[in-house]
C-alpha cells in the first residue's frame, strides 16, 4: 500500500503504514466494542437499577419484617403479539409488609393443538423498586413447556427488601409472555 509514496519532502509524521495499521486496529476494536455494549448494557441496567429488571433467584432467608408499613403489590400479565396462551394472574393485587415472604400464582393455558414453550419476561414499576424485589421462585426463571391443551398454575414466591424507599407505596410487577419456541432448551 505504500508503494506510491513520494520519495522526498512530505515527511511530517510517523510512517503511513504504521498509522494505517493503528487505525485498522482501532476500527476492529470498535467493532468489538459494539458487541461489548450488549453485556455492558445489562451491567449498567443492573447497577443503576433501571429497565425494571429484577435480579435472579435468591436464597430464602428469614428477615426482619417491617410491619409499620404496607405495600400494595399489583400483578399484570401481557401476551406478546401473537402468543396464543391464556395467561392470567390469580391475585390482582396483594398488600404485604416489606420483608415478609408471599406466594402468589399465575395461570397459563395452551389452547392450541401444538406443544409450545413460553418465556415470561418480568418488569417492575417504578423501576427504582426493581432492585428491592427478591424472588426465591418464579415461573419467569425458566421456560414453561405446555402440551397442547395443557394448563398449569405457576407460583411466584417473593418479598420486598425492607430497605425499600419510604415513598414507594405501590409496586407493579408485570410479566410479558413470549413464544419461546425458537429458543427452546
Amino acid at each position: 500500500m505504500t508503494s506510491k509514496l513520494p520519495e522526498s519532502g512530505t515527511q511530517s509524521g510517523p510512517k503511513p503504514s504504521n498509522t494505517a495499521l493503528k487505525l485498522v486496529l482501532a476500527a476492529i476494536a470498535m467493532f468489538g466494542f459494539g458487541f461489548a455494549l450488549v453485556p455492558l448494557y445489562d451491567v449498567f441496567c443492573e447497577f443503576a437499577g433501571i429497565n425494571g429488571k429484577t435480579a435472579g433467584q435468591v436464597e430464602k432467608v428469614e428477615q426482619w419484617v417491617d410491619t409499620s408499613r404496607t405495600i400494595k403489590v399489583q400483578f399484570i400479565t401481557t401476551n406478546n403479539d401473537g402468543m396464543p396462551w391464556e395467561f392470567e394472574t390469580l391475585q390482582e393485587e396483594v398488600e404485604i409488609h416489606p420483608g415478609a415472604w408471599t406466594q402468589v400464582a399465575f395461570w397459563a393455558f395452551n389452547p392450541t393443538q401444538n406443544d409450545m414453550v413460553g418465556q415470561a419476561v418480568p418488569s417492575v414499576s417504578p423501576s427504582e423498586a426493581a432492585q428491592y424485589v427478591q424472588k426465591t421462585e418464579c415461573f419467569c426463571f425458566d421456560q414453561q413447556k405446555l402440551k397442547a391443551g395443557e394448563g398449569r398454575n405457576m407460583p411466584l414466591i417473593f418479598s420486598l427488601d425492607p430497605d425499600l424507599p419510604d415513598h414507594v407505596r405501590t409496586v407493579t410487577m408485570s410479566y410479558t409472555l413470549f413464544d419461546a419456541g425458537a429458543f427452546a432448551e
Partner: protein
Amino acid sequence: MTTATANHDDHADHGHHGPAKGIMRWVLTTNHKDIGTMYLWFSFTMLFIGGAMALIVRTELFQPGMQLIEPEFYNQMTTMHGLIMVFGAIMPAFVGLANWMVPLMIGAPDMALPRMNNWSFWILPFAFGMLLFTLFTDAGAPNFGWTFYAPLSTTYAPSSVTYFIFGVHMMGISSIMGAINIIVTILNLRAPGMTLMKMPLFVWTWFITAYLLVAVMPVLAGVVTMMLMDIHFGTSFFDAAGGGDPVLFQHVFWFFGHPEVYIMILPAFGIVSQIIPTFARKPLFGYASMVYATSSIAFLSFIVWAHHMFTVGMPLQAELFFMYATMLIAIPTGVKVFNWVSTMFRGSMTFETPMLFALAFVVLFTIGGFSGLMLAIAPADFQYHDTYFVVAHFHYVLVPGALFGIIAGVYYWLPKWTGNYYSEKLGKFHFWMSFIGVNVTFFPMHFVGLAGMPRRIPDYALQFADFNAIATVGAFIFGLSQLVFLFLLIKTIRGGEKATDKVWEGAEGLEWTIPSPAPYHTFAEPPHVK
C-alpha cells in the same frame, strides 16, 4: 470534471504520464483526482435516485388518502430514500471532495494509500447495487425505516433484509477505509511548514470526521451483524423471548447514529469556512476556536445518543443527562455560527454562487439547529417525537445544511477542477430555485408536525392537507432544479470562460497556486508553507 483533466495532459508539466485511456483508467486508477471525481458522480447519481424516491413519497402525500402507491411500497420508499441519501449521497460526496481537495490543500502529491482508495470507492457501486436490487425481488426492499429498529428489522423484516445487512457491511468497510486514508494522508503527507494549526478548516473538519467514522462505522457493522445472527443463527440479541432486549438495539444504533449525523455536517462546516473568507475577503474569524469547537462537537456526539429515544422509557436522571448534554452542543455550534458572521462583518462581500449557497447554509442550518434544540427538551420531545417536526428538523440540517455545503463546495472548486468558469447566471438560477424549493418543502413540515402529523405514515388527517400540498409543490421545485445543476456541470466540463489559477479574487490556500484545471499530478515537489 472528468474529461477536463483528461484533455489537459499537456498541462502536466512535471514530466509525469497522464491518465490511461478508456474505461480501465477509471477501474484501475489510484489517482486522487480520478477517485474524487468518481465519488462525486456516484453520489450525484444516488442523489437523483434517492430524490426520485422522495418525490414518490411526496406525490403520495400531495392529498390525504391513498391514491398512488400501496402502503407497503411507501414504507420501502421512505426507507430506501433515507438509506440512499445518508450513505449513498451525502457521505460519498464528502469523501469525494476530500479526495480531490485534501491533498491539494496540504500540498501532498496524492492520498497516502492510493490502492486502498481505489478499493474503497469501487466497493460502493456494489453495495448500493445490492441494496437497490432488493426493489425488484418478491420480498420488496427494506421497509423498516432507515433506522431499522428491531424487531421490525429482525422478526418482522422482509427476507431482503439480508441483502440490506451485507450492503451496510460493504458501505461501512468503504467508509472506514476512506476515513483511514484521509487520516493517514493528513498525518503524514503535509507539506513542510504545514503545521496542524495552519491546515485549512476543510482539512481540519475532515480530519475530525474521519476519526468519528473510524470510531462508529464499526459499531454500525456490529449492530447489523447482531441482526444477521438473530435472523439466521438463532441468537437473541434483540428478542426478549430468548433473553434479549429490543431497546438495546436502539442504544447501539444511536451510539453509531448520533456521531453519524455530525459525520454528515462537520465537512460542510469546513467547506463553508473556506468559502465565506474568500468572498468576504477577510481571513476566517476565530480560526483556533473553530478547530476547538469542531473537536468539542465531535466529543459531545458520543454522549448524547439517547436523545433520540426519550420516549422509550428511561429513568428521569438519564433523560436529564441526555437533555443537558445535547443542549451543550449548541455552544460550540453557536461559536461557529458567530465566527462565520464575524468573518463577514465589514468584509468586502460579493455574492457569487458558492457564497450564496454558503450564506443559505448558515441561515438555514441555524434554523435546523434551533429546531434540534427544541427536540432536545425531553418533556417537549414527547410531543414532537416521531412527528413531521422531526422530519422538518433533520431535513433542514441535511438538505440546506449538508447538501448545500456540498453544492457550495462544488461551485467553489469547479473552476479549479475543470479549468472553466461555470455560468454565474445559471448558477444563481439554480441557487434561487433550490433555496425557494427547499423552504417551501420543509418549512410547512414544522407546522404539521407540531399539530401532530406522524412521520412514516402514507395517509394523514384532513386538516394537514394544505401544508402537505405546498410541501409537495416545493419538493418538485427543488428536485427539478437539481437538473439545472446537472446541466450546468456538464456545460462547464465541456467548456466555458477559462479560469485563472487563483479562480477567485479573495481565494487563499495551496489549491489556488496550481494551474486550472488542476494537472493530473500535483505537488510532486512539495511546496513550502511559510
